């Protein structure tokens, strides 16, 4: 049996898809293990928590007039001793009414620790990392907490984060869970809701259970001041500052923990155009991190970094290339004479992937109260053909944009997600 080049390419895409399926099935399993372990440990956070270190909450805000008011109010009503936490809003080069709203809030809540740092074109406007650096330099607390400007954390969220990080010395940072506030808005937000939940239970909880590894999601996390100091702040060139800082935390020998009880509700894009821009930025940022660390992979000794590199690599390169390859082979087979001699298994891997996808996402949804219903399961079945396919375009676009930036030495600009 002579194998042609097409056959080899096909084998390659088959194998990398298979590997990804294998990885995901273990992630789902570990996510469930994490869930059972963490739900068997019942913490009475109101009674058991005795030490309250000082905490600074940073909220970078760039043209956030639609959401900032509610966000700041939610932060100020967090259940934590009032003299132990401060809220620092970085009003970063806003051209709308964000500043005005913040000033009014400051007057209303004059008895609370609310600080507003306003920057203009010269001092600010360089993206989220820069805004976070400014905020952090103006804070004094031992722990830094970051929330996006559209977040509504639950009242006990901060307590859970602090509790988790103070109770373990090897945690450099602890992340909470984020949920979708506008999930019933339209089918896109419903898809995003399912996606974020399965991402958090499989990728975050699953990786933590397997490798003691989590990635900072950009919001709802607590980090030690000493860690940021050692890192020299956020990398202002990184577009996905959260992935980047996660990698640097692993390299310091710290771990990033996952605390599913610290919940924040955030607003997800309601329009495809906005979603597309946001995701392209993430993809581009991940490619940046991946390539930055891939260059020195042979010298890399931190196991968690290696696994995460493999994870991103398999998602962005192995899987993407295999999907594209198999699609090309399929189309070639339809319209030209180039046919693969290894036929029929096309359908096997496809069915396998589809069924496993539905199963794994459904399992992840079952772990979240009230999300495991027939409607959602049907959505999952649909998602595979619609929402997930969009990801391919996003990944390709993100890569193209990244290489364009590298080639033309453009300065990376931070696109802020539009609010509704």
């Amino acid at each position, binding site marked *: *049996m002579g194998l042609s080049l097409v056959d080899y390419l096909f084998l390659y895409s088959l194998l990398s898809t298979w590997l990804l399926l294998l990885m995901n*099935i273990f992630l*789902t399993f570990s996510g469930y293990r994490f869930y059972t372990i963490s739900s068997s440990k019942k913490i009475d956070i109101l009674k058991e928590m005795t030490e309250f270190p000082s905490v600074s909450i940073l909220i970078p805000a760039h043209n956030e007039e639609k959401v900032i008011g509610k966000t700041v109010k939610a932060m100020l009503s967090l259940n934590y001793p009032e003299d132990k936490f401060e809220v620092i809003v970085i009003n970063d080069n806003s051209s709308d009414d964000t500043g005005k709203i913040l000033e009014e809030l400051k007057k209303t809540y004059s008895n609370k620790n609310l600080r507003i740092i306003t920057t203009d074109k010269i001092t600010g406007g360089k993206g989220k990392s820069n805004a976070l650096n400014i905020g952090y330099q103006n804070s004094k607390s031992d722990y830094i907490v970051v929330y996006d400007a559209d977040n509504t954390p639950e009242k006990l969220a901060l307590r859970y984060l602090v509790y988790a990080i103070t109770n373990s010395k090897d945690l450099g940072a602890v992340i909470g869970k984020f949920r979708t506030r506008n999930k019933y808005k339209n089918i896109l937000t419903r898809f995003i809701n399912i996606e974020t939940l399965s991402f958090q239970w499989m990728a975050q909880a699953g990786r933590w259970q397997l490798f003691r590894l989590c990635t900072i999601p950009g919001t709802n996390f607590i980090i030690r001041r000493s860690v940021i100091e050692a890192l020299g702040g956020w990398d202002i060139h990184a577009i996905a500052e959260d992935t980047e800082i996660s990698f640097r935390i692993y390299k310091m020998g710290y771990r990033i923990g996952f605390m599913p009880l610290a919940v924040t509700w955030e607003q997800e894009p309601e329009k495809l155009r906005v979603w597309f821009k946001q995701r392209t930025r993430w993809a581009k940022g991940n490619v940046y991190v991946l390539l930055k660390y891939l260059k020195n992979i042979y010298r890399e000794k931190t196991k968690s970094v290696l696994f995460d590199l493999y994870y991103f690599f398999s998602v962005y390169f192995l899987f993407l290339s295999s999907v594209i390859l198999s699609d090309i082979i399929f189309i070639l087979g339809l319209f030209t004479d180039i046919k693969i001699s290894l036929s029929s298994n096309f359908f*096997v*891997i496809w069915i*396998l992937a589809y069924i*496993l996808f539905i*199963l794994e996402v459904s399992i992840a949804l*079952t772990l979240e109260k009230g999300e495991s219903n027939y409607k959602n399961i049907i959505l999952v079945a649909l998602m595979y053909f619609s929402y997930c396919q969009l990801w391919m375009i996003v990944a390709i676009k993100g890569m193209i944009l990244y290489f364009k930036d590298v080639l033309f030495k453009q300065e990376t600009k931070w696109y802020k997600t539009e609010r509704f």
Partner: protein
Amino acid sequence: MTRNRHIDIFFLLLIIEIFTITTLLILNVKEITFTDYVLYMLIFLIIVISFYSNLITGLITSAFLVFGYGSYMLYQSLFYEKSSIGNSYFWIVLFPLSAFISGRLSDSINEIRNKNMKFEKQVKELVTVDEITGFNNIKEFYKDLNEEMSRSKRHKFSLVVMLVEIQYLEELIGIYGTDKINKIFKIISNIIEKVTRTEDKRYKIDEDLFAVIMPNTDIKGAEIVKERLKKKLEDIEVNHGSQTKTYKFDFKIAVLQYNDRITNSFEFKELVQKELEYDI
């Protein structure tokens, strides 16, 4: 109530599923391979795992099996060109389906079970009356005893508690059966009611233990009541249809008057119970 339906539905689905698989296998009996038989067994394994653990464990097990079998299929189709994968998809879909149906069935059953347990607990907490005798139960006993004790302390009234214990109750139930014993309990409670005064309060505080709180009574009066009760309880007559049967049971009765050294109702009851030992 809607939950009850779920059990019916999922049980029916499970039966239909097993029936369908078996039928299909029987109809294709000539083409069945050993692999098919192994897969058939695995389906049953999944059903059992999913039923006795929970839905998620069942689904995860089925995910592993789907992946394992899918990989086997891939391997087969890559290296043995002739192998057909015709009905393999059938199995791949059946794994999670079986886990789902059986898991949901067990979830629905557990839900009813938990509800039942909750209700039983609630009923226990809410009920203050003993079903058979109509007397109040131990919860009411302590509540009333506390009241009476503080009243007697303040107004210097005398107060007596009387306990009536049926001996060898377990053996009696063994001999006569619960139904008959319940009937006898009813008669005993009638006797106690007749012998005591209207203002006395009567309770059934344990399986084999009756209690009477007697306010404004001193120990002398109580002793008289005790003797009278003992006599009445010597022969218990029960009507069985037309004929009357007489039973002889052993009882222990104790009375104790309240005094200032007794600090709480639990202690009071304990002391009376100790008195029971001397009633021979």
